[in-house]
């Protein structure tokens, strides 16, 4: 009897306590801009997912340490989805009800799944460096923002870089370029641009898919050894990248003739290979490893040195950490821009943040002031261009660190724009989406 009474009292107390906690959280939520964070800290891609997530969350903490966005503090909640599309959609469904006003799915598969949901829920999707390439066309993809670059940008610049190494675009004729790609929506994205470029310049494109997660590539690299392509483009993620570089070493394929996408150009991709990866290059989504940047110094001083860091201190400034940090910064700046129109110091809605992202104007002065000098170039979006920038660099692993090895490249709009418009129009027809007019854009 005594136990029963005690249990009842404990239950009542816990209900009361949780109600109090809930109401406090709800009150806090009302005054804070909520950022959902889709992460994969476990599973096959955890080694790459962790630094991205740490950079993302750390940046939100940094903004809070600096006083928030015009006084509005940021709150966040992580949702682990293990890079599985179904779990990613589950996370979206769960977190959208908690006041999410912007989502970053960190997966092309999840982006495809959410593209039809975002307009209904009125929540913008930022897909910095991934996602649907045709979603650059904001007049059709109103809620998608593939900021900084798409895979079509990556593919275009990759061919430009290979051509430059050979001495010009005309030197591509008769050459053989192999694409070793993750057999998923992510890995297949660059194929249309590469095929287009192959037609234009007369090179032979060899497509070599690798099944998830990419731990067994011997047959792929034996084919490369047999066919001896002049260049291998690596479109991998996670363990697939290090395995590819190891197989290249094991089959004697020169790493200097390998060029990865920006998701195949970070420390976890080469650290385990070490000197064997020396000479391997990858595209940089503007930034590389940036340990000396001002934003990193601020992060260390205001977050990590105060014991608030999310991950290990020595990871701060690494490539994927910076990718996460910049992704968070783009979301924050979207909110800040929205506040310029809808009221400083207020919590923004999804629709307002969408407007902010569509009218983003991060010029060099702003970037420098935020600590991104030398890290990235200006980003300016519009109704018709939701990407905002298409500048890319190349960096090379020297055996111990990534170092920039090229000048800036810009994707060729003459090649990409017609493809973007055609693919976006096709999507609009299939889904019955009306392309926005100039008047609608101006609203």
């Amino acid at each position, binding site marked *: 009897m005594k136990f029963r009474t005690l249990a009842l009292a404990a239950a009542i107390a816990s209900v009361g306590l949780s109600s109090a906690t809930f109401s406090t959280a709800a009150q806090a939520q009302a005054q804070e801009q909520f950022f959902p964070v889709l992460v994969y800290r476990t599973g096959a891609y955890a080694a790459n997912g962790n630094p991205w997530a740490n950079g993302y969350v750390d940046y939100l903490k940094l903004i809070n340490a600096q006083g928030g966005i015009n006084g509005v503090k940021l709150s966040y909640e992580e949702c682990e989805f293990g890079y599985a599309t179904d779990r990613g959609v589950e996370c979206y469904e769960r977190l959208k009800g908690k006041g999410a006003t912007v989502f970053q799915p960190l997966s092309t598969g999840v982006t495809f799944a959410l593209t039809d949901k975002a307009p209904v829920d009125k929540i913008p999707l930022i897909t910095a460096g991934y996602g649907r390439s045709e979603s650059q066309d904001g007049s059709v993809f109103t809620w998608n923002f593939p900021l900084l670059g798409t895979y079509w940008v990556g593919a275009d610049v990759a061919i430009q870089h290979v051509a430059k190494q050979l001495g010009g675009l005309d030197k591509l004729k008769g050459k053989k370029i192999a694409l070793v790609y993750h057999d998923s929506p992510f890995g297949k994205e660059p194929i249309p641009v590469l095929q287009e470029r192959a037609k234009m310049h007369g090179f032979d494109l060899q497509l070599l898919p*690798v*099944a998830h997660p990419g*731990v067994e590539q011997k*047959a792929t690299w*034996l084919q490369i*050894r047999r066919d001896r392509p002049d260049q291998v483009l690596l479109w991998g993620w*996670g363990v697939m990248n290090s395995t590819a570089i190891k197989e290249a*070493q*094991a089959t004697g394929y020169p790493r200097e003739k390998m060029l990865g996408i920006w998701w195949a150009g970070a420390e976890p991709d080469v650290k385990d290979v070490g000197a064997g990866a020396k000479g391997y290059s990858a595209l940089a989504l503007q930034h590389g490893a940036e340990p000396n940047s001002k934003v990193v110094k601020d992060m260390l001083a205001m977050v990590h040195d105060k014991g608030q860091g999310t991950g290990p201190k020595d990871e701060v400034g690494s490539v994927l950490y910076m990718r996460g940090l910049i992704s968070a910064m783009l979301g924050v700046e979207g909110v800040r821009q929205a506040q310029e129109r809808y009221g400083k110091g207020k919590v923004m809605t999804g629709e307002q943040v969408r407007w902010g992202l569509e009218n983003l104007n991060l010029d060099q002065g702003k970037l420098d002031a935020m600590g991104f000098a030398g890290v990235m170039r200006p980003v300016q979006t519009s109704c018709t261009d939701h990407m905002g920038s298409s500048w890319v660099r190349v960096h090379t692993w020297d055996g111990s660190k990534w170092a920039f090895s090229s000048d800036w490249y810009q994707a060729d709009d003459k090649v990409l724009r017609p493809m973007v418009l055609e693919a976006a129009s096709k999507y609009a027809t299939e889904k019955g989406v009306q392309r926005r007019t100039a008047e609608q854009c101006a609203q």
Partner: protein
Amino acid sequence: MGFFIETMLGGLMTGMLYSLVALGFVLIFKASGVFNFAQGAMVLVAALAMARFSEWSNAALGGDSLFLANVIGIIGAGAVMFLVAWAVERFVLRKLVNQEGATLLMVTLGIAYVLEGLGQTFFGSEIYSINVGMPKDPVIMFEGLIEGGVMINKEDFIAAALAAVLVGGLTVFFQKTAIGRALRAVADDHQAAQSVGIPLNKTWVIVWCVAGLVALVAGIIWGSKMGVQFSLVTVALRALPVVILGGLTSVPGAIVGGLIIGVGEKLSEVYLGPMVGGGIEIWFAYVMALIVLLFRPQGLFGEKIINRV
């Protein structure tokens, strides 16, 4: 011709490594009648423990002796695998004596998730290295006989040789030693084995320890090849068609099955893959296993199950 030989050799060496993982499945099934879905997780935990103990001891030793650090790593990982074996027997299997096979199968699924989670919690989820001095560069042989020669990956060759030695040793252990016979007796019938004085609990700890040892060797070899990370658990999935094809109760079946799958998937990817867009080697291995099942449901070397009615 040289390329065909290279593909064959590559397949044989990969197949030998599959055999090593498949052996873990076979050992536990032979000794306890349990299809151990946790074998992949055991490979991951063993490799993580080896990599981290080795890394920590190397740092403690001032980076002077990689050999000593690796020895400490192996001892530490061995201790972890013993602990896993003991815990599985003490907290899981002991409660489930004489339960249905399906129940035990589901339990091993649960063990897999627990091991994956605990392993990454204790040892981290980054990519770690195992450096046991394996050569990474290829060697070209028979250049005089075949145009362009035949490329052999030294690391794969050494790994396959190590796997072959271990497989041979375990075959002898199972067939010729008293403990091996006791393990087989337990597998045939728990109650009958107990009635003739074979201690069930001790036997299960032994067999999970042996499976842990196999997982450790597989973890070191695969970890050295592809880095120690979560994806090691998927290596176990590559060994599933091997045990289906070779038979769940046969050590030689695991070896022959591994070699057939290894060669089959490489040849299929290289010669059939381009016709259908590539990326077929994983499912092609299962197709081969299913074809065998159509004609020999017990696998190539499995024991034919005869039920008296």
